[in-house]
């Protein structure tokens, strides 16, 4: 028993020790518990805020952008050129339609198929494919008129007592916007178009994309603490509206006559700009060919079907970009004789010429190894003439004298002052700066040819900007096409006031040039642009395109009215007019086009007629033009010949006999005439 007792005692001892050890174990357990609680508190303190936000984001189980409405583009009087139209997408909620034993399915499908262009098969197929989905887009771009009847029907049914009503549910509409251009191709190059993906692609749509684009809103559904699906909508902010300087009426007049002309005689390009010389505002700007803004990627109107078939993707892209490019800002060309006003104004400013200066023209002038001709070379030149006649009758020889007298340095300085060689900064994308000489690299021949607008490249807007300042008394305004920006409710956000960038000429020079140009319209080369009953000034140009051997022409007329205090400046340009190639065609087209446009434009602008006034009055006012009378008959004779009114410059070797050469080439080109015609078509 003592052994048993001993064992029992040993067991008791061991049990006692084990109790102590159990206490140790329990103590350790408490310590670990405390550590764990501290850890939980630590996580909350250190990262609680951050984690709460992350978890909150988890709550937003779905979120959807709501596109803000893109702003409108309007003309100066409020006519809408471009706007965004609200359309609806039809969405079904298969999960809802199949819930409650398909209680809603039959009635809803019936209503949908009767009111929308959708078949029962389409819906049932979707219900089988995606039974758990809560969002399936079925139809897109539905007009509001299509959607309203359904919503009204659903509302009416829900008002009825439960037993009678049709169970309509699980259908909703999400709204979106499409861009619409009510006048299709009107001012297409200027307005441009916008795509859903990229926003503004070209033109004003691109230039003012940031203004036009609204701020997108957000709609998100989340699951709240009661496990209910909640929907929160943050409303979008609509984009701003752009008020352009364009005038719908003027734009319409310009495009009407461009279209008429090109229907008869398709040109490579016909571009017209009408501007207010006192502000630099562009009133109308159009170029042919244009395109339908509602369908900008359609080439079928611009390209013949058989040619379209031959084109590969790259060629089509090139053709589209060609179509989309705005001739008025993006093409550069040699301006020709319209540039003469710039040269003469520069010389007047520089004191290198003054009203009444005399020049002699014998048909050509030998400069730096080249014999450069005047357009009257065939009849032995202009003879004696003064400064007014040099501009009004467009004498190359006199202009070369003036240019060489002015010198390369001054010429370059004034060209720059008039804005040539630099972008005007017009608020349209893709403006080209053109090419002018710098004074150091300028040879005499360059000075000579520059003086009458050859061997330098300008764009139409540069010409508009320069001429505005030339005729408005010397204020160079930055040409612009946007007048104001308003918010979606019409409150003005920003007004773009015409700003004088710099002074180009004095008022006296401006007056002189205006009257010289009036003389051109009244008595000389620009007569065919004259609208009876209005005082007008103008200058024509017939520039030969490079390579000269192709004998392709770019004809233009710069005109304005009235002569005193001009209200409108019109620049008409025809690139490769039908029939001028080869010299046998009608170089007068640009003048006829100018006249057509001006005939409608001047009354539209309510410019007062001068019928009761003596038309020669302004010319007489100049007073100091003694040789005018001598030259007039010559000029009149000239027009009877119906010859080209402009110079042709040939960089022939001086040894060659220029006249013969010219004759020959003309003949050749006449023979080729039909061929060219075919090509153009």
């Amino acid at each position: 028993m003592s052994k048993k007792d001993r064992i029992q005692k040993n067991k008791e001892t061991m049990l006692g020790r084990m109790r102590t050890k159990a206490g140790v174990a329990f103590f350790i357990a408490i310590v670990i518990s405390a550590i764990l609680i501290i850890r939980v508190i630590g996580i909350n303190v250190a990262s609680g805020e951050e984690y709460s936000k992350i978890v909150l984001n988890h709550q937003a189980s779905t979120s959807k952008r709501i596109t803000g409405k893109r702003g409108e583009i309007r003309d100066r009087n409020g006519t809408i050129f471009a706007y965004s139209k609200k359309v609806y997408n039809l969405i079904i909620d298969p999960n809802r339609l199949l819930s409650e034993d398909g209680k809603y399915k039959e009635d809803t499908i019936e209503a949908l198929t009767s009111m929308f262009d959708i078949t029962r098969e389409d819906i049932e197929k979707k219900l089988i494919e995606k039974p758990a989905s809560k969002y399936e887009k079925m139809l897109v771009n539905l007009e509001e008129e299509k959607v309203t009847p359904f919503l009204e029907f659903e509302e009416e049914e829900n008002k009825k007592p439960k037993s009678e009503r049709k169970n309509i549910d699980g259908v909703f509409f999400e709204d979106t916007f499409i861009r619409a251009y009510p006048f299709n191709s009107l001012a297409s190059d200027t307005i441009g178009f916008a795509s859903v993906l990229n926003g503004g692609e070209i033109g004003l749509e691109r230039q003012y994309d940031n203004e036009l684009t609204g701020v997108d809103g957000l709609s998100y559904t989340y699951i709240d603490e009661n496990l209910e699906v909640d929907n929160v909508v943050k409303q979008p902010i609509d984009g701003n509206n752009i008020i352009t300087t364009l005038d719908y009426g003027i734009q319409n007049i310009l495009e009407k006559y461009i279209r008429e002309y090109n229907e008869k005689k398709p040109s490579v390009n016909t571009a017209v700009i009408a501007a207010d010389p006192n502000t630099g505002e562009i009133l109308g700007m159009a170029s042919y060919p244009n395109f339908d803004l509602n369908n900008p990627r359609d080439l079928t109107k611009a390209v013949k079907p058989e040619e379209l078939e031959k084109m590969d993707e790259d060629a089509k892209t090139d053709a589209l970009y060609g179509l989309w490019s705005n001739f008025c800002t993006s093409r550069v060309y040699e301006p020709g004789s319209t540039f003469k006003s710039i040269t003469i104004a520069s010389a007047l400013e520089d004191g290198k010429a003054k009203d009444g200066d005399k020049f002699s023209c014998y048909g050509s002038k030998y400069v730096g190894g080249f014999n450069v001709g005047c357009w009257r070379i065939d009849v032995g030149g202009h003879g004696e003439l003064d400064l007014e006649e040099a501009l009004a009758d467009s004498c190359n020889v006199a202009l070369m004298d003036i240019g060489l007298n002015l010198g390369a340095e001054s010429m370059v300085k004034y060209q720059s002052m008039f804005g040539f060689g630099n972008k005007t900064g017009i608020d349209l994308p893709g403006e080209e700066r053109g090419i002018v000489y710098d004074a150091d690299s300028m040879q005499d021949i360059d000075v000579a040819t520059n003086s009458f607008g050859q061997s330098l490249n300008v764009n139409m807007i540069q010409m508009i900007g320069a001429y505005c300042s030339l005729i408005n008394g010397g204020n160079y305004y930055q040409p612009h096409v946007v007048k104001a920006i308003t918010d979606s409710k019409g409150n003005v956000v920003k007004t773009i006031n015409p700003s004088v960038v710099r002074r180009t000429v004095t008022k006296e020079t401006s007056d002189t040039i205006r009257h010289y140009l009036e003389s051109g319209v009244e008595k000389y080369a620009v007569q065919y642009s004259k609208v009876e009953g209005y005082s007008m000034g103008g200058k024509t140009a017939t520039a030969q395109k490079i390579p000269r051997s192709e004998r392709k022409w770019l004809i233009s007329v710069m005109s304005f009215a009235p002569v005193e205090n001009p209200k409108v400046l019109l620049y008409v340009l025809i690139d490769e007019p039908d029939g001028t190639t080869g010299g046998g065609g009608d170089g007068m087209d640009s003048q006829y086009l100018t006249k057509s446009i001006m005939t409608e434009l001047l009354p539209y602008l309510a410019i007062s007629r001068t019928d009761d006034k003596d038309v020669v009055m302004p010319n007489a006012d100049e007073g100091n033009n003694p040789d005018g009378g001598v030259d007039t008959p010559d000029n009149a004779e000239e027009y009877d010949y119906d010859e080209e009114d402009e110079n042709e410059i040939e960089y022939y070797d001086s040894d060659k006999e220029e006249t013969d050469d010219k004759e020959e080439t003309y003949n050749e080109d006449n023979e080729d005439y039909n061929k060219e015609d075919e090509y153009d078509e």
Partner: protein
Amino acid sequence: MVATDVSKFKKPKATSTVKKRDFLTFDYSLFFIVVFIIAFGLIMIYSASEYSSQQAFGNSWGYFRRQLLSVAIGAVGMLIAYVLDYHIYNRGKIPWFLFGFSLIFMFALFTPLGLTVNGARRWLDLKVTTLQPAELVKISVIILTASLICLSKTKFVGARKMIRIFLCTGAFPALLVYFISSNLSSAIIIACISLFMTFIGYPGYKPYIITAIVVAVICVFAYMYANSASPDSDSFRLNRLAVWLHPEDYAETTGYQTVQSLYAIGSGGFLGKGLGGSMQKLSFIPEAQNDMIFAVICEELGIFGAILVVSLFVFLLWRIFVIARKAPDRFGMLICMGIFFHISVQVFLNIAVATNLIPNTGVTLPFISYGGSSILFLMFEMGMVLNVSRQIKEE
């Protein structure tokens, strides 16, 4: 011969005690805290599984109902364990029989009965219900370890003997569980139960302090190694350590569960988002009703909820500890402490994983996490402890 003497000597005494005492005399505190924890667990399972249950069953109570059924079966098990005198487990070769039986169940995983879920072969398909044999191994390890320690007739069990006991009842079944079912967490729990029980039985502290220091040093080295290692290492274990250190860097892949759990805990604040208010359970925390239920509790009930849960377990452990101290003999005491360690190790590992204190390993939170086998055996164990509490001699 001596061993049978002991049991003969003990048995009548113990039975007489039971017979003398009322059937309903037991540790009420323990019973009620168990009921409370289980009820709390059921509520939390309903809340946490509401969403995933919708996905799986089409209603919000699918997981809850299954767990309720497991609790009902567990209650029967608890009653049986309560009625059965705990000395039965130590009678003759019964501990060895139970141990062998549980290991055979482990091997049964190789038979067609073995069920592979999520790539892990851990369940036995018993047609009526599924069973995790590892849970059975845990309880048999507790019984065998207690039994082996009680064999000692001297005042203490020697270190060499203790090592042998540990190798037999801890290391061996742990390795077996690990290699058969690649269930690292169960292996760790089994090894820990056995190790800590030998700590109770061993007279001194020295070998255990040394072991603790060695483990700590290994952990520090592992930490430093993982910190210096390149994160794109091929090694799976190393990768697991890297995920532990920088879970945000792996938020889309292996660190997803940990990161989502941290988000849930961190976003709870002091009082949480209210019961049922968890956002993270909405498919962000994978199996929110399972291993990561603690994160949902923290999110819905906040720091307050975390303290509540830990306090409940501390109270439970305290009651088990009190019963162990008052246990009439060494076997009862060791059974209680084995169960004490089983519960505490699982609670601590689970919460430590949820709070990213240790690398992610799948451990369920006792009584609270969803899982039939776990709650069944835990409730049986509680019945055993309550049976021990019945036999406490009033002093």
